C-alpha cells in the first residue's frame, strides 16, 4: 500500500519530466536561433553547476578550480578537431573528456589531501596554473587570442552514419542528448551506494572512515567525476562557438559555477540545473535594462547568502514539498 502511494505521488514528477522533454525537443522549431543558442548555454552551465555540486553539496568540498577542467576539455577538443583531416565530433568530444579526466586525476590526487579552506585554495591555485598556461603558452593555446576556426564537425561513425552538425538545431539536439545522459547518470550516481557514502563523508569524515570507507579515495573519485562533468561542459563549447579563449579557465568562471550551484541550492539534485536557468534569465532580463548586470548579480548573491541559503530549489522544497527530494 505504501509502495503504491509512493508511485502515485511520484506521478506528477514523471508528467513534468515528459512535458519538459517535449518542450526541449520542440524548442528549435518555434524558439528561433537566439533562444536555441541560449538554451545550449544553459545546459552547459548546468553541467558545470552539477560538477561543483557533486563536490560541494554531496562531498562537502568547495572547489574554485572547476574552470580548469572546462578549459582542459575545451582546449583538448579544439586541438583534436583542428588536427584531424576530416574532423569528427565524437573524437573531439571524447578525446577532450579524456584529457579533462586525466587532468582532474592528477590535480585531484594532490588536492584531496586537504579539506575546507586549504582545498579551496589549492583548487584555485591549480585552476590559475591552467589559466596561466592557456594565456602564456602561445604555441600550444594561441595565447590571448585563443584557438580559432574550430570546425563544428559532423557527428559520424565511419561506415555507419554521418550527421551534419552545421545547423545550430542539429548541434542543439546533440548537446541536449549528451546533457540528458549526463544528468541521468548523475542522478543514478548520487543515489547509488557510492553517492550515499559521499554524503556521509560530507556529514562526518571520521565516522565514515570508521565504517571502513577509504575517504580519500572516494573523494578522489568524486573529484575526477566532477572534473569529467566540468570537462563535458567545456568540450561542447568549442564546436558551438568555433573558438576557445583563456577566460574559460579563469577562476571567475569557476566562481560562476559556484554561484549557479548556490543559486539553485546545494544539497538538492536539481538545484544547479535550476540555478543555471535562473542565471541566464537574470542575465537576460537585467541586460535589457543596463549593461552593468554583474552589479545586480552581486546584489542577488548577497541576498541569497543572507536570506535564502538553501537556494531556490531548497526553498521550494521546504515550503511546498517537505517530503520529496528534488
Amino acid at each position, binding site marked *: 500500500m505504501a509502495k503504491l502511494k509512493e508511485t502515485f505521488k511520484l506521478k506528477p514528477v514523471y508528467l513534468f519530466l515528459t512535458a519538459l522533454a517535449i518542450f526541449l525537443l520542440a524548442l528549435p522549431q518555434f524558439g528561433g536561433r537566439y533562444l536555441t543558442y541560449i538554451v545550449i548555454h544553459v545546459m552547459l552551465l548546468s553541467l558545470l553547476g552539477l560538477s561543483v555540486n557533486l563536490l560541494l553539496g554531496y562531498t562537502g568540498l568547495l572547489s574554485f578550480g572547476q574552470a580548469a577542467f572546462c578549459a582542459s576539455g575545451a582546449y583538448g577538443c579544439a586541438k583534436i578537431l583542428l588536427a584531424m583531416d576530416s574532423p569528427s565530433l565524437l573524437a573531439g568530444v571524447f578525446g577532450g573528456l579524456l584529457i579533462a579526466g586525466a587532468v582532474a586525476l592528477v590535480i585531484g590526487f594532490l588536492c584531496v589531501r*586537504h579539506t575546507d579552506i586549504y582545498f579551496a585554495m589549492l583548487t584555485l*591555485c*591549480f585552476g590559475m596554473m591552467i589559466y596561466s598556461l592557456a594565456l602564456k603558452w*602561445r604555441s600550444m593555446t594561441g595565447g590571448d587570442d585563443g584557438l580559432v576556426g574550430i570546425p563544428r564537425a559532423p557527428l559520424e561513425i565511419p561506415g555507419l552514419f554521418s550527421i551534419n552538425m552545421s545547423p545550430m538545431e542539429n548541434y542543439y539536439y546533440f548537446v541536449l542528448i549528451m546533457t540528458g545522459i549526463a544528468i541521468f547518470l548523475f542522478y543514478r550516481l548520487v543515489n547509488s551506494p557510492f553517492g550515499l557514502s559521499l554524503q556521509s563523508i560530507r556529514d562526518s569524515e571520521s565516522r565514515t572512515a570508521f565504517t571502513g570507507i577509504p575517504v580519500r579515495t572516494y573523494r578522489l573519485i568524486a573529484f575526477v567525476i566532477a572534473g569529467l562533468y566540468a570537462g563535458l561542459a567545456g568540450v561542447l563549447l568549442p564546436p558551438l562557438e568555433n573558438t576557445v579563449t583563456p577566460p574559460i579557465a579563469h577562476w571567475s568562471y569557476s566562481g560562476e559555477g559556484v554561484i549557479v550551484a548556490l543559486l539553485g541550492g546545494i544539497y538538492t539534485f536539481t538545484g544547479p540545473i535550476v540555478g543555471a536557468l535562473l542565471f541566464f534569465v537574470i542575465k537576460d532580463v537585467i541586460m535589457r535594462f543596463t549593461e552593468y548586470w554583474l552589479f545586480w548579480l552581486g546584489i542577488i548573491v548577497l541576498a541569497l*547568502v543572507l536570506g535564502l541559503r538553501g537556494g531556490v530549489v531548497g526553498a521550494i522544497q521546504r515550503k511546498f514539498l517537505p517530503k520529496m527530494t528534488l
Partner: protein
Amino acid sequence: MYLWLIAAGLTIVFGVLRILNFAHGVFYMLGGYATFTLYGMLGLNFWLSLVLSLISVALLGGLIERLFLRQVYNLELPYQLILTYAFILIFDDLAKMIWGPMFKIPPVPSALSGTVSVLGRAFPVYNLFIIGTGIAVAIGLWLILGRTWWGKTIRAAVSEREMASALGINIPMLFLTVFMFGTAVAALGGALSVPTRVVTPGVGMLMIVEAFVVTVIGGLGNLKGAFIGALIVGMLTSYGIMFIPILQLFTMYAIMAIVLLIRPQGIFGR
C-alpha cells in the same frame, strides 16, 4: 610593496576574523579610485587626498563588516567566500559606472617625482617612497600588535576567542576595528599605486589572487610570512618576466601549490 600592503590587510583580517576575504582586492581598487578622484580630478593636496581616501574606504569596510560579514561568521566556508565574492561583482561594476571602463593615471606628485642616484644608478624617488612606506607599515604593524593595548587584545582574540570575550574584550567591536584597519591598509596600497600603475575596474580581482598567493606562501594569518611572501612573489614577477616570460605566472602558482601541499601552514607558520 603594493602586494605587501594588500597581503598585510588580508592577513590581519584572516588572522582575527577567520574569513578569507575575496573583497579585499576591491578595497585596494577603491583606494586607488578615491585617490585618483580627490587628487587627480579635484586637485586636492596629495597627502590630504591620501588620508581622505583611506578614511572613506575604511568606513565603507566598516559598513560592510557591520551589515554583511557579521551575519556569516558562524556559517560554512562556501557562504563566507561567496558573500565576499559578491562584493567583487558589485564594486567592479560600480567602479565602471562611476569612473568608466578606461584606466586612470593621475600625475606623480611633484615632491616625489624625479630621480635620485642610488649606487650610481638613477632611481625614481616615488619608488623609493613606496618601498619606504611598505617598510614603515611593516614596522608600524609590528609595533601596534606587540606594544599597544589594541594589538594585545587582537592577539588575545586570535589565540582564544571565547576566553578573550569572557575577560571583557568586546569582540564584535574588535572585529569591526580590525576589519576597518585591514581595509585601510589595502586602500593605502591602492592609493599609492595610482600614480605609477593604473587603476581599472577588475584590478581588484587581479590583485586578490596574487595576494592569496602571497598570504598562502607566508602562511595564512602570519604577518612576517606575508612580508617575505610578498618579496618572493614580487621578485618572481619582475625577474620571471625578464628570463622565463612564459612560465612567470605559472611558477607563482606552482610555488603556492607546493607550499600548500607540503606546508599548508606556510613557510613561516607554526
